[in-house]
């Protein structure tokens, strides 16, 4: 439990009822995480073993095609593989060999499972073991599933990091080390590094690291601080390696960033005053920068469709720091333990929903008539055409939004569509 934020079960939304729904989900599957993971881990390659749909999804998901020689590809299963005319494992070995020959710079290869590969029960774990033996020490081969039948959007990152967790070297030094878990934009990592250094913490690392050859060590001295709210399996895997989770709200907004850094400081034995002194200037800047957005957003009503699991921390930030009114906060999956501190901070009475039946949720959204709707790309233009103002949720995942310096940028993502609507109406 965090030492700085007092938690009482009787406040906020800690015990709030959650509307659980099933039906059509207008969300991406976990394969989409490859779009940012392949940029984050610079010597890793992601090979989806799936169908043409998987290839088309990744190509289309970012809203644009990402052309460069990408560090991801799809091994498309075809009829011959399904009919047993070709040995799927032999085929996969052939594809991997061709790929690694083409990209000698790759050090880490993920075989990424998809809906079709899961349904035909293609054993990618076995394949990864076999290929690792063949290509080590040049290339380590791991596997995880990004399939839509098992993972929603950001859960793909969770599955990927959980697969990587057993590969972390064992820490030889038992003294406390801070491990920040979850992919962050490099610019955000660098800001946090400076703040942690300023408060006197020297032993810290980020997971995932930018290079697979420099994975951080882990052991009983490891204090794990989650930077993202969707890392259920990763946290479990790291806990199994001896890491201890630091409970904290997530570093969105001034309040979230302060609490998160204070939680890190407390866990690493840094005095509160030292932490305050280190973060003071950045915190001050961020508070000032937010003020202007507060004037634009105060009292505006917002509705969240489920997307990335970032919805609860975002709602907390928008409600507490900018005065927005929460109509419904939908999330694909609500992890009560990791979000305990967030739920406690949410205004009491907030309508929470988990899972989705998109048509019913659209009905509720229309009934609420919110001032702004956070939703995926499939819904945004149709809702705009109905007269709603929308914010694409995917931008909240692809944009650096964590930390003090990004707090105003994050608020800006919500003020811009509202301002734009006013400009165009004038």
């Amino acid at each position, binding site marked *: 439990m965090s030492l700085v934020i007092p938690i009482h079960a009787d406040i906020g939304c800690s015990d709030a009822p959650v509307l659980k729904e099933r039906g059509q989900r207008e*969300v991406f599957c976990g394969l989409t995480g490859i779009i940012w993971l392949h940029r984050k881990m610079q010597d890793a390659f992601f090979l989806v073993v799936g169908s*043409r749909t998987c290839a088309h999804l990744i190509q289309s998901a970012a809203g644009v095609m990402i*052309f460069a020689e990408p560090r991801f590809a799809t091994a498309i299963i075809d009829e011959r593989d399904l009919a047993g005319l070709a040995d799927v494992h032999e085929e996969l070995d052939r594809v991997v060999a061709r790929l690694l020959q083409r990209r000698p710079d790759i050090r880490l290869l993920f075989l990424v499972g998809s809906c079709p590969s899961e349904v035909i029960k293609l054993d990618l774990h076995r394949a990864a073991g076999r290929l690792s033996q063949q290509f080590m020490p040049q290339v380590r081969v791991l596997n995880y599933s990004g399939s839509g039948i098992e993972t929603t959007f950001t859960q793909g990152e969770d599955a990927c990091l959980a697969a990587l967790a057993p590969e972390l070297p064992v820490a030889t030094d038992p003294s406390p080390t801070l491990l920040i878990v979850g992919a962050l934009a*490099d610019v955000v990592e660098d800001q946090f590094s400076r703040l942690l250094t300023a408060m006197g913490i020297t032993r810290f690392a980020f997971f995932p690291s930018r290079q697979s050859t420099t994975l951080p060590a882990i052991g009983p001295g490891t204090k794990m601080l989650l930077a993202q709210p969707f890392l259920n399996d990763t946290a479990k895997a790291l806990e199994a390696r001896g890491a201890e989770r630091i409970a904290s709200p997530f570093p969105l907004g001034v309040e979230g960033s302060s609490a998160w850094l204070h939680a890190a400081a407390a866990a690493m034995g840094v005095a509160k005053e030292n932490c305050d002194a280190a973060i003071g200037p950045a915190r001050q800047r961020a508070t000032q920068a937010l003020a202007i957005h507060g004037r634009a957003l105060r009292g505006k009503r917002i509705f969240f469709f489920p997307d990335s699991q970032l919805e609860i921390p975002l709602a907390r930030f928008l409600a507490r720091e900018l005065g927005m009114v929460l109509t419904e906060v939908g999330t694909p999956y609500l992890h009560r333990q990791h979000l305990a501190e967030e739920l406690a901070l949410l205004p009491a009475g907030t309508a929470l929903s988990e899972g989705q039946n998109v*048509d019913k949720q659209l009905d509720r959204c229309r009934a609420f008539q919110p001032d702004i709707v956070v939703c995926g790309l499939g819904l*945004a233009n149709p809702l705009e055409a109905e007269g709603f103002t929308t914010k694409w949720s995917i931008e909240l995942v692809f944009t650096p939004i964590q930390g003090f310096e990004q707090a105003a940028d994050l608020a800006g993502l919500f003020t811009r569509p509202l301002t734009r609507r006013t400009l165009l109406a004038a």
Partner: protein
Amino acid sequence: MQLTLWTYEGPPHVGAMRVATAMREVHYVLHAPQGDTYADLLFTMIERSNKRPPVTYTTFQARDLGGDTAQLFKDAARDAYERFKPKAMMVGASCTAELIQDDPGGLALALDLPIPVVALELPAYQRKENWGAAETFYQMVRALAVKPSEPRVRGDRKPRCNILGPTALGFRHRDDLREISHLLTQIGIDINVVAPLGASPADIARLHDADFNVMLYPEVAHQAASWMTRNLGLPCSKTIPIGANATKSFIREVAALAGIDGETALADSQSRSPWYAKSVDSNYLTGKRVFVFGDATHAIAAARVAATELGFEVVGLGTYSREFARDVREAAALYGVEALISDDYLEVEERIAELQVELVLGTQMERHIAKRLGLPCAVISAPVHVQDFPARYSPQMGFEGANVLFDTWVHPLMMGLEEHLIGMFRGDFEFHEDAAPSHLGGAAHLLQPRAQAQAQAQPHTQPHTQPQTQPQIPARAVIELPAQPNKQEGPAAAIPAAWAPDAEKELRKIPFFVRGKARRNTERYAQNHSVPVITIETLYDAKAHFSR
């Protein structure tokens, strides 16, 4: 199993969605896992559609697989009927649902809905998007079209046709349809039904009430059109009206089908492009080396326009539409080139680099290849991008389409006099051949070798505590990297004769797209004439020798 970096076509159920979304009063219930809803954004984002595609996804999860996914499908189909009240329903499976074999067609029939239900079998592990669109349109026509009980009597009324092929997410379908509808009306032909775009199930039922069909996009419509020829007695046009000449042939063809005189319409045909192509400024277009790639219809048409209406030299022609490979091979033979039939983006890139082209006419994929190789490019075909849905009227077909082709293909090129000046002052430090055309910004497009680019992209050795300044997760969804090896000039290995420095320098003054050839010819000449060192004299001797 096929290794794929980028794909030209989506899976076949996306083709079915293009038909469903194009039509009115139709709903498509798709048995599919979570994530397949990504396809909605193709329509809402790329085409900026103001409504959701009329598609319900069953969204089954891993835990449902042991249970009753069939029930899930039935519930979804019943709910979709209740909520959307369509006049016809399409049902089918995406790639994953195909594997669990729930038989959506049978399940939907068991619901006994009071509307026609069309079951789609779209084998996702064999077929692709355009095939899916064609099959879907064909099945819809088969299921919903009504055969006339009595033979058609035309009487005194004007001739009447259907227009077949335009879909949602089609490359310029919206504007082509407007252009061709206008053209047909102008020559005195009424339009009975346009399908799939804008057609309701009731419209499909009255397709027979026309004298003939006009097929704009064979990729989507050929199967349905030939079924209608056989079963409804509707002949179909063959000419695709892309380019001024083809538009004229098209007018003659439909006039003959309609039994009217098309010559009057031809006489006052209004297209600027033939005159623009004749005007002296277009002289510099002569013999420009173009590479053409796209779906079969657009690729074949673009090659024809390039060769016969603009005077380009077609040095490569290809398609990703395997279904139409034969047609493309035949077309390629006209230009003495071998057709490239491939959906492997890397293979296309290799071919473009190898052919040393001056203009690429391709898809969005080729646009990126061209950008990387520093070549001018115009987009002529799907797969589409948000830029392929311009706010302005911009058809590819008809006379206005021919004007659009002229402008969009010629503008990326160096203007005539600019090219001459560069030829004259090749050594100028800011006005040299590697500089982009001045009207396109003028910035030199420098191609970096891969190793160098990687060295720049990987400044990190320490994973933490080291302040980093370069953000690597981009702040925006658009990520484009410049790094690609320059494939235009291979390693100068196994050179029989050595190059004197001044000859090497002179060689640099030759335009890049013929430089490789000049180098090879000179070396061959030197070898044949036992010249040990290639001098400027050797270079020009070789030039004279080979230009006989």
